[in-house]
């Protein structure tokens, strides 16, 4: 079915009318709405994980190292602050400060990720002996599901940061036009918001259960 025929003459009229400033502003508004809708969608995924946690654990929680939890949470919060500072720097056209803060954010993100992998998951028993396994019991399973899904978003956020940093280094963004930076920043904050709810759900709510196998 050759349903869509070509007609090039219409292209010129329609497109030039929208070109330039208006086009960028309109696209920017759509991008923002699109990204926020994506967040709303993801909120249901993380909400589903929280629901799983409350359904299976009820008023109990696994024995997790409280200090570690507080530290990784703080690291992630601080990374959000540095990310916002990076965006502010870009809004003011201060590229040096931008590069510094966004790399700092990535560093904090990596520290958070390391904390999760070493202490929550116990992937490196030489440093820290974790006692949870994904297949051991419902505590291990849900901890790994929640932190795993969150870590996946942290990893993608870090990749995003390095892409944006590299593009900025090449001079891609300007004081006025930097949707790449803005989207990267609010994505990073969103990952932080998710953790804001996961932290109490994993570490603080309920009494620690002593599971015998």
């Amino acid at each position, binding site marked *: 079915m*050759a349903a869509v025929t070509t007609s090039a003459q*219409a*292209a010129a009229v329609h497109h030039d009318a929208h070109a330039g400033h208006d086009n960028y502003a309109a696209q920017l508004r759509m991008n923002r*709405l699109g990204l926020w809708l994506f967040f709303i969608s993801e909120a*249901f995924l993380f909400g589903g*994980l929280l629901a799983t946690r409350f359904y299976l654990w009820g008023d109990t929680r696994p024995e997790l190292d409280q200090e570690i939890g507080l530290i990784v949470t703080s690291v992630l919060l601080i990374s959000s602050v540095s990310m916002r500072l990076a965006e502010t720097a870009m809004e003011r056209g201060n590229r040096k400060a931008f590069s510094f803060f966004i790399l700092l954010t990535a560093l904090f993100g990596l520290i958070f990720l390391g904390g999760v992998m070493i202490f929550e998951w116990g992937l490196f028993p030489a440093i820290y002996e974790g006692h949870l396994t994904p297949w051991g019991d*419902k505590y291990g399973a849900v901890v790994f599901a929640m932190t795993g899904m969150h870590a996946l978003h942290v990893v993608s956020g870090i990749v995003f940061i390095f892409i944006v940093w590299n593009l900025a280094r090449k001079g891609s963004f300007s004081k006025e036009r930097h949707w790449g930076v803005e989207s990267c920043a609010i994505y990073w904050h969103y990952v932080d918001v998710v953790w804001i709810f996961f932290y109490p759900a994993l570490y603080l709510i309920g009494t620690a259960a002593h599971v*015998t196998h």
Partner: protein
Amino acid sequence: MQLTSLGLVRGLIGYFAGLVIGMATVVIFRLVLGMPAWDEEAVWVGGIIFAIIGFVLAIGAMSDWLKWTRGIETPMHHGPPADKPAWTRYFAVDYNHKVIGIQYGVTGLLLLIIGGSLALVFRAELADSGISFLQAGTYNTFLSMHGWVALAAILLGVGGMANYLVPLMIGAEDMAFPRLNAFAYWINVPAIITLIISMLYGWDSGWTAYPPLSLRGPVGYQMVFFAIFTIGLSSILGSLNLIVTMLMMRPKGMTLFRMPIFCWAILATSLIQLTATQLIGQAFLMLSFERTLGMPFFNPLYNAAGENIGGQPLLFQHLFWFYSHPAVYIFVLPGLGIISELLPVFARKPLFGYRWIALSSLAIALVGFLVWGHHMFTSGYGEYLRVIFMISTLLVAVPTGVKFFSWLGTLWGGRLSFQTPMLFTLGAISVFLIGGLSGPILATTATDLFLHDTYFVVGHFHATIFGGFVFPFFAAIYYWYPKMTGRMYNETLGKLHFWLMTPGFWLMSLAQMTAGTMGMRRRIADYDPALGVEPVHLLVTIAGFVIAFSILLMIYNLFTSAEIGAIAGNNPWRSRSPEWQIPSPVPEHSYARPISVVGEPYDYGLAGSQYIAMSGAGDD
């Protein structure tokens, strides 16, 4: 022309290359960790994930984005590829929403035929008692596959209507994010291939994939999980795109309450798709992880003291139905929108209660989030929940009733004409009425306890889906066929299609419900002739084949009319909607000049009323 220059072929190569690479990666990984190299389950999971990614990368659905990450700008390409025949754009990544809409629609129709054929096979088996040619395991696989293939067909069909029509109806150049649109379509294709590959191993739980059965069955389940996860991802991205398009790209003067009513239906649908779909993705991912890694989400696990330190099967049902009930509204709301869209055109009368219809779609969508527990009346959850879910479910009848009365009000005193699209619209109303009236019987706990898991449910479900999706979808195909191809379909064949399919469906639906009340369980390969359901089953099977034959007529009609049909002209239905004011078939850039809205959309038959105005070139 080289075969590999066709996007789809490259994608398929990427799929199988990814499959091999993924399987090899898992084997190597297992060897490094000191595990036995071969584990069917794990190897297939790795293979499937890589295969889906491989397809998408190879066909080039992500190449623009990957270029952006390196700072390379990619201007939007319009029109068919320069160095290839025009038809190849339908088999490759193309950013035009009209092409993507047709890709969605044709794929959906193809899946509908595959899903229907699967049903015909096991319907033939059920025509008499005793096992004649389908062994129980194969029967289960066919039945389960019929479920998901048909549901995927519906999701794609809805995607087709939405992608083709929404931008045209709001006078937009394209969707808000054309690349995302193409991506959202193309991830469906590897998912469908994966779904079909699952038949190699089979799976046997029905489409619901309840654990613990789905945790123990063959490897086919893993393919289903990832296929559905991917199709779900497509739903989410597609609906996101549609919402942004409708909220941000309407022309001057088109307030939300002056949008064509179909857009309202799609808006409500998209809100469900955007949010609820995550839950089934999550549930299926959890099943997959439980199977692959043994993470006990759903299977209970008892320690020495006899305490359950593992999961709970009921959790899956909650997660599953939190999507899968609203999903039913994803399937039917667009179809109901089509009915509301077409009735005024063929009745030459204003749509009765435009605002009420618009808001009833939203109301159905919102109430739909609160009713999932009515699928679980017999599951053993807290008994107090039964009352809550019964009441919320019965509430759905209110906005649905609003739609019915609005349709009646539109038809009342209209100057009706009965071309094929109108026939299918009326057929849809009649069939949806059967489905709708059998709903409260199942929503009421007291009666559901007896009817749960019987053929009554099958009859109810198929009536709602045929009335809410299949009939309106066919109406839409006939109605917009001239807009898509520029030619008219064959009216006689169209009418024949209708007069075979509609009585066939009434018969099938009522017979299924009868079998259910006589005690026929759903999803079983054999039954006791002493139930007395044998003649009823024979009727269902015959009706099924009649419906299948009528659909073949439509396919024949669509194919031949594209070549020999009469030239349709711009506006054969005398519609007021913007897409009918431009040439058929729609040019590459749909609207040469921006449109603006100056009146109400459905004021058919009112003297001096005007919906849209095509503005002059300088009047932007």
